[in-house]
């Protein structure tokens, strides 16, 4: 365990002994059972002070609560508190008080007093005199007591023994209940923690959405540990993919501190910890922020996330709910694990994005070099990629699927690398042989790309982008929906871009003419369901791409705007 720590230790709160919490419940159980045995019940402390009176109502209740009876009880308890083994005593003729000791930590703390009536009590003077003094109905009282006035000294002793056993058993039961409650609480907490860790482990696989992962993580940690808020802060140095270049704060919950205060406080704390030679990875517990004590004695737990040897991010939690606003070791362990998850996730996510960028960069370089072989087709692949993606989205494909279509569009003409340059840029009409050479490019492209891992799903788009809806295309002469969707999407984008740009064999057509042509080709060359979607696309970005590509081209080549 690390000894470095940027917070005062605070005092160690003392928990309430569990046995005290259970004492009331135990008395209630005993009283209910005694009531069934025809016994009246008091609860007293050692000095004879009555803590609970009997619950009987009517004449019996009034009689039991009379000063005469109360004095009998008090005297009996005072007598018992002097005895090591308190004995049953006779309050008046035919009426006995049975002591049941209450102990706490092996010390006597008081008594439960049980009062039993025998038949003789009904004939004695006490009842008559008390009723006279208290103006009670003696006849009614005797009638009410008759049924339960069956005790004798012998049955009192037996009853006491049986009740003592029961009290012992009740104590054991209460202890077990307490243990079970503890286990249940612990188990419930453990389930929550396990569920959180499992969930985080599962969601770590989607590296493409760091913001979603981190926000979800904050929400879950807050929920599990009962903090008011949990947030993750990443510094600008982080330069993590999917996050902006400025410092970021992802928050689950509402902090009682303002976001700016929180951010500056965190930066201060990290800087101070670093200046004090604090270990970079060691947690910090803040009891104050920017010189101000946190409300309600709460604390902020801050766990740095170390990447490349520097604390470039941190997860923190504050405004803990419940009786104890202080940070516990349970919170620390979970936040440490969460920090580990986030660190690993950010690392992986950065690597993934880097790899993805490199992969796409390589593909773009490859396709640009092919486009460059023919000066008329500069930027063609990029534009087709863009339009195919837009059409895919318009056709209802997901963002991820449309991105794959975009990549397919980007590489659709890779096979042209195997077609002689003279044929590609020939100004006049092509001979049959030359056209046959051109027609090979989808298959050449397919061959080139088929061994690249993770490109399997885009291969059909490359191979079939020159198929025609009526089956008169190449290379396989597929018809209608037999043509893979990706191929049908690229075919429209490819046709559109070809007509929109000046080629070696003709000039660019105006936009309106191109769109009319696209609609005319629906059903013959192009998919009749996709063509109407295509003509409704927004071509703003496309036109910007055209302008950019034209800028790097000789002036004679122009696109129709």
């Amino acid at each position, binding site marked *: 365990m690390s*000894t470095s720590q940027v917070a*005062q230790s605070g005092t*160690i709160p*003392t928990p309430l002994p569990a*046995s005290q919490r259970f004492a009331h419940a135990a008395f209630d159980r005993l009283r209910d059972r005694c009531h069934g045995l025809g016994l009246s019940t008091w609860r007293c402390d050692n000095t004879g002070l009555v803590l609970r009176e009997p619950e009987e109502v009517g004449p019996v209740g009034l009689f039991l609560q009379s000063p005469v009876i109360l004095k009998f009880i008090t005297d009996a308890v005072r007598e018992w508190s002097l005895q090591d083994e308190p004995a049953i005593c006779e309050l008046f003729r035919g009426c006995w008080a049975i002591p049941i000791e209450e102990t706490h930590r092996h010390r006597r703390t008081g008594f439960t007093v049980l009062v039993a009536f025998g038949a003789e009590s009904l004939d004695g003077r006490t009842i008559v005199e008390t009723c006279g003094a208290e103006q009670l109905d003696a006849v009614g009282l005797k009638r009410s007591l008759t049924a339960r006035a069956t005790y004798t000294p012998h049955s009192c002793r037996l009853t006491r023994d049986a009740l003592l056993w029961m009290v012992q058993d009740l104590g054991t039961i209460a202890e077990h209940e307490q243990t079970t409650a503890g*286990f249940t609480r612990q188990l419930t907490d453990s389930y929550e923690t396990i569920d959180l860790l499992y969930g985080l482990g599962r969601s770590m696989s989607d590296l493409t959405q760091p913001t979603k992962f981190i926000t979800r993580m904050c929400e879950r940690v807050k929920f599990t540990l009962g903090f008011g808020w949990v947030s993750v802060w990443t510094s600008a140095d982080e330069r993590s993919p999917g996050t902006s270049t400025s410092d970021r704060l992802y928050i689950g919950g509402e902090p009682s501190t303002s976001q700016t205060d929180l951010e500056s406080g965190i930066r201060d704390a990290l800087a101070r910890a670093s200046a004090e030679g604090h270990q970079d990875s060691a947690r910090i517990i803040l009891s104050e922020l920017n010189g101000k004590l946190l409300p309600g004695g709460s604390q902020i737990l801050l766990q740095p996330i170390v990447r490349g040897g520097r604390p470039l991010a941190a997860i923190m939690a504050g405004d803990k709910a419940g009786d104890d606003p202080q940070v516990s070791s*349970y919170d620390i*362990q979970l936040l440490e694990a969460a920090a580990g998850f986030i660190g690993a996730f950010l690392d992986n996510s950065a690597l993934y994005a880097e790899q993805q960028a490199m992969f796409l960069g390589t593909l773009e370089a490859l396709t640009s070099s092919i486009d460059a072989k023919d000066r008329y087709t500069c930027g063609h692949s990029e534009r087709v990629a863009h339009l195919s993606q837009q059409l895919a989205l318009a056709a209802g494909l997901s963002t991820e699927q449309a991105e794959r279509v975009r990549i397919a569009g980007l590489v659709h003409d890779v096979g042209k690398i195997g077609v002689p340059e003279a044929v590609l840029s020939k100004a006049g009409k092509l001979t049959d042989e030359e056209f046959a050479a051109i027609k090979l490019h989808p298959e050449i492209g397919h061959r080139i790309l088929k061994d690249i891992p993770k490109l399997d799903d885009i291969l059909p788009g490359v191979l079939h982008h020159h198929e025609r809806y009526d089956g008169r295309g190449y290379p396989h002469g597929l018809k209608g929906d037999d043509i893979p969707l990706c191929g049908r999407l690229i075919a429209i984008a490819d046709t559109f871009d070809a007509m929109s740009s000046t080629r070696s064999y003709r000039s660019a057509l105006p936009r309106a003419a191109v769109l009319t042509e696209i609609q005319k080709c629906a059903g013959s060359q192009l998919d009749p369901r996709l063509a109407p979607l295509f003509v409704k696309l927004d071509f703003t970005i496309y036109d910007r791409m055209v302008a950019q590509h034209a800028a790097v081209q000789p002036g004679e080549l122009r696109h129709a705007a």
Partner: protein
Amino acid sequence: MQLPSSTVQNASIRIVVADDEAHIRLVVGGKFRSEGFTVVEARDGEEALELVRSQMPSLLVTDLQMPYMNGLELCTQLAADLRTASVPALLLTARGHILEADRLSATIIKKVMSKPFSVKSLFEQATMLLAQSGAIGLSKGSISDLRASGAVKGEAA
């Protein structure tokens, strides 16, 4: 069925487990009992103080936050008493803060573990403390040997 010799030897070793939470006593005490040790349980700091003085255990495993006397006070008082100063203690804590080294030096605490803890690692730390104080012998000084002896428990010796 005969108990293995290590378990029989363990029976003469007493361990006091002090925690106000019954389920922690059950889990920790249960682990030591299953390894053949004799366990005495205390529900609060004062009770633990009495028990350590009367039982003279080989090890005290205590919680930090307890009624009447917390684990730190308990271990400070035990350190101040010559008879109990050599009893090693393992402190369990659910507090976020870390106890400063100088606060621990005046106690019999030899090891601090945070809750939630793994019972297996707690047992490993405890056996290490018992071995250090010479209460149990470890052949070749290895903990894994001891664990192995626990693993074969129940087979005829």
